[in-house]
């Protein structure tokens, strides 16, 4: 078969100079070699796509590391490395609004992720035993919430009736998603029942089975679900607009909006920072706040990415 293929394709690729092109070992033998133009176009399009993501990040990071004078000379974002300094980071991390907001965001993310992961795993295990008491009705109760949202206004009124306005619990508590429970439950149910039965016969209770067998066997899915929930907590913005009215309690995303996007002057940074008026006196400072908001994402990213292939479909649908 293979010899036939090569007979068919070879005349097409053999140049008069008999100089055989190096063949990509990953290319199946039946597939034709790309034409020069095709390969060039592909390269250009892919480069544009990749650069459109990387270039803005590059200028932001570079500007945050530049001196104020360098950013003024560049007339805004710095694209060519010049005078570098860590002063912007020193300033925003030396206490004050940004430092506090970063700590708040880290706290909400850590507590929220821990809580939602533990509750999700417990609920998923509790619903994973076939024929257990009431699991069908409970599943139905969970499923409904995936199709009918409650709406913004009643949810807001509820949170305020519970006295959670200006409390971080308003951001942390409504976190267990029925969808994640079902995903993890599916993985638990795929575990060979004979293993669990053996443990049960040996006298292990449900807590022990969950902790010693089920969780260690499902590390990948638990990692994906908890990392997605961590990203959700870190990025949450509008919930904080709704529920946190006290500026002193703002998480980092609100600080980013106020002091960078809307250009409100950061107290103590000196000089107005009107982004829309063209004044850029605090630009490295502002860009340092942006980097602060990106950094945790970049730190967990390689870790999440390892599991993308496993969680590929549900991740994409969940969006």
């Amino acid at each position, binding site marked *: 078969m293979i010899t036939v293929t090569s007979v068919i394709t070879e005349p097409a690729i053999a140049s008069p100079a008999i100089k055989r092109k190096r063949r*990509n070992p*990953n290319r*199946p033998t039946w597939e*034709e070699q790309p034409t020069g133009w095709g390969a060039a176009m*592909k390269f250009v*399009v892919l480069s544009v*796509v990749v650069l*459109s*993501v990387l270039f803005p990040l590059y*200028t932001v990071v570079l500007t945050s590391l530049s001196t104020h004078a360098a950013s003024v000379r560049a*007339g*805004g*974002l710095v694209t060519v490395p010049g005078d570098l300094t860590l002063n912007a980071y020193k300033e925003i991390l030396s206490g004050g609004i940004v430092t506090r907001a970063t700590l708040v965001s880290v706290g909400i993310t850590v507590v929220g992720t821990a809580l939602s992961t533990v509750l999700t795993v417990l*609920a998923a*295990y*509790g*619903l994973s035993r076939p*024929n257990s*008491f*009431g*699991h*069908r009705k409970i599943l139905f*109760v969970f499923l409904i919430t995936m199709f*009918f949202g*409650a*709406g*913004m*206004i*009643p*949810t807001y009124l*509820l949170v305020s009736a519970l006295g959670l306005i200006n409390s971080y619990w308003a951001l942390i*508590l*409504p976190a*267990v998603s029925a969808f994640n429970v079902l995903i993890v439950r599916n993985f638990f149910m795929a575990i060979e029942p004979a293993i669990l039965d053996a443990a049960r016969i040996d006298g292990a209770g*449900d807590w022990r089975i969950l902790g010693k067998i089920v969780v260690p066997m499902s590390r990948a899915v638990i990692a994906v679900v908890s990392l997605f929930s961590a990203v959700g907590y*870190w990025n*949450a913005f*509008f919930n904080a607009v*709704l529920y946190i009215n006290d500026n002193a309690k703002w998480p980092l*995303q609100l600080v*980013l*909006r106020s002091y960078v*996007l809307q250009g409100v002057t950061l107290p103590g940074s000196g000089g107005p920072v009107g*982004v*829309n*008026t063209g004044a850029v006196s605090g630009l490295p400072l502002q*860009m340092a706040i*942006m980097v602060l*908001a*990106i950094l945790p*994402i970049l730190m967990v*990213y390689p870790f*999440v*990415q390892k599991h*993308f292939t496993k969680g590929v*479909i549900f*991740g*994409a*649908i969940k*969006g």
Partner: protein
Amino acid sequence: MTTSPVRRHPPASDHARGGAAKSAAPLVRHISWQTRLKRDRTLLLMVSPTIVLIVVFCYVPMLGNIIAWQDYSPYTGFVHSPFVGWEAFVRVFNNPAFAHAVVNTLTITTFQLVFFFPIPIALALLLNSVITPRLRTLVQSVVYLPHFFSWVLVVTLFQQIFGGAGLISQTVRQHGGSGFDLMTNPHTFILLLTGQSVWKEAGWGIIIFLAAIATVSPELYEAAAMDGAGKWRRMWHITLPAIRPVVILLLILQLGSMLSVGFEQIILQRAAVGTGVSEVIDTYVYFQGVVAGDWSFATAAGLVKGAISLVLVLGANKLAHMLGESGIYQKA
């Protein structure tokens, strides 16, 4: 079928269909519900915190929608506010600002559907033709990245690049041109929104198409190549039909969420471009309810939106069935 008395399965295989247990009684060991409750109490204990949270944060607010039929005031509360029938809904339908928000929402989502939706498909096809694994992994990890950024970050990034003091405007100005500000220009706002969505989500969108393409057997391509099909014909006759169900499924889901277009994205830029082009249903509900305090009116507007969304999903699903696709659900 499942209740057929001649079934030979041992009772153990009946696990998965607890509901059928009653009718197949002679074959199933009968356990009283008290015994099962006692047996499964640990499992129920494990689920209970999540049940509590879901009931409190999902079901209670669902019931709270009742205030759409009340003359609600926070001081009198859910219980004591008087019922006034459909008054709030009448006000919603007679309100030109609400109609304006609906038109804006539909314009933006239709525009995004046309100009955003094909991009991940095209990118997935392109990436699928990259056969060097390392290059492919590199491109994928880069284009997935913006999905994990918050909207605040994305909008700020766009402002720094396309805004009045942004990188492009500054560069143009330094070369003698006049600057521009895309962030505050209402005429180009829809392009800006779509550009931001493409930048943030198009890369992530390819993941599901790549997964669908990966399920195609390579033998199909080989056989087609044998028969003389070039790569464009192989794409047209093999790859695209293979991802067709996924495309239709995603289209239906898109239609269902047509009325909740990028809320965080828009509310961040609403002040900069003005409400004329940026007021959508969700922002309208927010400002009428939480900001202006007209709770019953805002809730009614939210319910109207939910109802239209439901009709859109059902309609799209029906259309999918008519086109011979399975859609998201089927009549049993």
